[in-house]
């Protein structure tokens, strides 16, 4: 997927990430602002808790009646003049999209940021098809220039500092900005991109909501690039996951409030657009043809595999911004399209558990993600579900299985456990100096960068039962 080689293993990607001080700086800046603004937005929203419960219920309702709402959406979208396509897999979705582009005689397409497009590998498919792709979202443009993958679902270029972006633009833009302030960088990108906006034959966007009772597609952006992507070209293609359905515009608005406040802490997005069918007679602008590609790509399988709650996800990014693991390792370390807690749940479903078994394990299950999720997805529970499966399928390392088997043998036999515990603390004490253990065999994971306090010579149970039998008590 990436033009730049990334290390193949999770551990190697983590090692690369924690060794990069600029990455830490970039993550801290953006996620810090996001956390602060979200906290303020939630604090000033008296009814946040009930809005959150309502958001959860709306999503659960749609997912429970997915067939009904999909049929309704399709009927209404067709009635508005849109063409609706169904894609079971990522490959099918890309094939359909490329076919439409070819039929429109497109050599060049503009694209507005869409995580689903990344998920199905659309940038790659367009390149294979020899179709030039212009990313209209500023951050996606940065990613494209750098030949990288997005590292965050809301801010794809989160891993780059402003200074790094300025450097990149100086190297690659025809008329690059000199400074590194945001306004200059935006102007630089605008000069570079604008002409392309109007030369494209096809515009491709994602969808934030698919509105069943009208057949409309809702997109939200802050740069207005989605509108420039979807209006001037002759053909507009929407690629959307089937979980984006909502019954009506009112439901979309309820979810939009949750989405925006959770993502950026703003009240609303700058641009909220409803696309409903192609240009009609008398319309001043709009595409001549409007295609909607509805993508499953594992979603119905997730329903059957105990990941139903994950289909509530609004892709707001709050769980990423608050996750202390994400803050430490950044998005690329996760290896998939989706990083952070939601990615650790989704990536094994999309790309297979065996190749991604680290993702559900590399988590302290601290629960902050669930606490901030605007649709109350029980992310820790879902991660545990992957751990259970990984254990069942024998994907966990033999050393872990062996030590847990030994542990099991002891903890199920309290008398043996007390003996073993007493022996263990006295053994461990032999490695202590001045109250601390600085190195110990088989404990490198702990002691490489941490000490371990020396335990006392007797366990609690030894001390307690000795003194209680001295007092003549019997238990």
């Amino acid at each position, binding site marked *: 997927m990436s033009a730049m080689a990334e290390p193949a293993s999770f*551990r190697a990607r*983590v090692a690369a990430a*924690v060794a990069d001080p600029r990455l830490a700086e970039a993550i801290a800046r953006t996620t810090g602002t996001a956390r602060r603004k979200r906290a303020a937005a939630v604090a000033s929203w008296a009814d946040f808790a009930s809005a959150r419960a309502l958001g959860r219920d709306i999503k659960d309702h749609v997912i429970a009646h997915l067939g009904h709402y999909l049929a309704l959406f399709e009927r209404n979208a067709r009635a508005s003049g849109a063409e609706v396509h169904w894609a079971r897999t990522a490959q099918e979705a890309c094939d359909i999209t490329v076919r439409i582009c070819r039929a429109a005689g497109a050599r060049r397409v503009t694209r507005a940021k869409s995580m689903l497009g990344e998920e199905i590998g659309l940038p790659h498919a367009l390149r294979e098809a020899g179709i030039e792709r212009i990313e209209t979202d500023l951050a996606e443009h940065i990613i494209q220039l750098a030949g990288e993958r997005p590292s965050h679902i809301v801010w794809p270029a989160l891993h780059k500092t402003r200074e790094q972006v300025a450097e990149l633009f100086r190297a690659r833009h025809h008329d690059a900005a000199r400074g590194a302030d945001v306004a200059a960088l935006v102007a630089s990108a605008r000069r570079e991109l604008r002409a392309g906006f109007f030369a494209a034959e096809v515009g491709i966007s994602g969808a934030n909501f698919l509105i069943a009772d009208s057949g409309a597609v809702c997109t939200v952006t802050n740069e207005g690039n989605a509108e420039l992507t979807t209006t001037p070209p002759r053909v507009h293609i929407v690629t959307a996951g089937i979980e984006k359905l909502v019954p009506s515009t009112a439901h979309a608005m309820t979810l939009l409030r949750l989405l925006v406040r959770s993502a950026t802490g703003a009240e609303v997005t700058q641009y909220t657009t409803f696309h409903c069918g192609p240009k009609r007679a008398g319309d001043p602008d709009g595409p001549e043809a409007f295609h909607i590609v509805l993508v499953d790509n594992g979603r119905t399988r997730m329903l059957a595999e105990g990941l139903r709650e994950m289909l509530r996800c609004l892709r707001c990014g709050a769980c990423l911004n608050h996750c*202390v*693991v994400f803050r*430490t*390792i950044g998005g690329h370390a996760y290896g998939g399209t989706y990083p952070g807690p939601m990615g650790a749940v989704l990536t094994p479903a999309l790309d297979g558990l065996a190749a991604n078994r680290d993702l559900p*394990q*590399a*988590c*302290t*299950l*601290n*629960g*902050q993600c*669930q*606490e901030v999720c605007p649709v109350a997805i029980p992310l820790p529970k879902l991660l*545990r579900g992957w*751990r*259970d*499966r*990984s*254990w*069942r399928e024998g994907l*966990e390392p033999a050393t*872990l299985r062996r030590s*847990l088997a030994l*542990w*099991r043998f002891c*903890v*199920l036999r*309290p008398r043996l456990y007390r003996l073993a*515990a007493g022996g*263990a603390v006295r053994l461990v004490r032999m490695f202590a100096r*001045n*109250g*601390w253990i*600085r190195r110990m065999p088989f*404990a*490198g*994971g*702990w002691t*490489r*960068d*941490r*000490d*371990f*306090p*020396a*335990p*006392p010579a*007797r*366990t*609690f*149970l030894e*001390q*307690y*039962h000795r003194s*209680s039998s001295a007092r003549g008590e019997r*238990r």
Partner: protein
Amino acid sequence: MKPRVALFVTCLVDLFRPTVGFAAIRLLEQAGCAVEVPRAQTCCGQPAYNSGDRATTRDLARAILDAFGGYDYVVVPSGSCGGMLRAHLPHLFDDDPNLRARADALAARTYELVSFLTRVMGVETVEATYEGTVTYHDSCSGLRELGIKDEPRRLLGSVRGLTLAEMAEPELCCGFGGTFAVKYPEISVRMVADKARDAAAAGADTLLAGDLGCLLNMAGRLSREGSPLKLRHVAEVLAGMTGECPPIGQPARR
């Protein structure tokens, strides 16, 4: 009649910090409980549960149901082991109505120590003195699974001589996460180093928490960094036992 309380010591306290168990007993007895320590106890099962080994977790959970079934309350000096018994244990038996009912009954009678003292026994103040400025780390499971936030701070507020100074992010995970700390040390150490920085910046001389796992992790990192910060389980301060036992990792003065 005094309520009969079974102390679930937790394996970490048993092995590495017996003082916490004795502090818990003292606090419970001061609050008017009759405390017992069932012999047939080992661990709450989190190492297996969090590794995905459901079968072992269930087997251990059944043993816990047997050992701790007959008491008025079960009290645990740990938010994460308390959370395991209260929030997770019942779901291990979703497919077995009999065991599920027993697990629900146990969960309803199980409390983390500080929340038990305040919520059930109505303890408002403690008889203890601690000269120093402390900062309190909210361990994740206690905070998010059991809703413990104010209780330890309220009781600490009644300790003579004690000043509380908050960290910038007291609710941020310290990077322990059980086996996570040894499975992913690169990530865990970065997290605990950030925590250590936050604790140092709070201007406290003592760092307290209600979970020994977090405390061992934070103490281990702070020791490696050569920090003078003292670490203790909150129960030791509330029970007034700091004179009887040095902070974590410091040799006993004799």
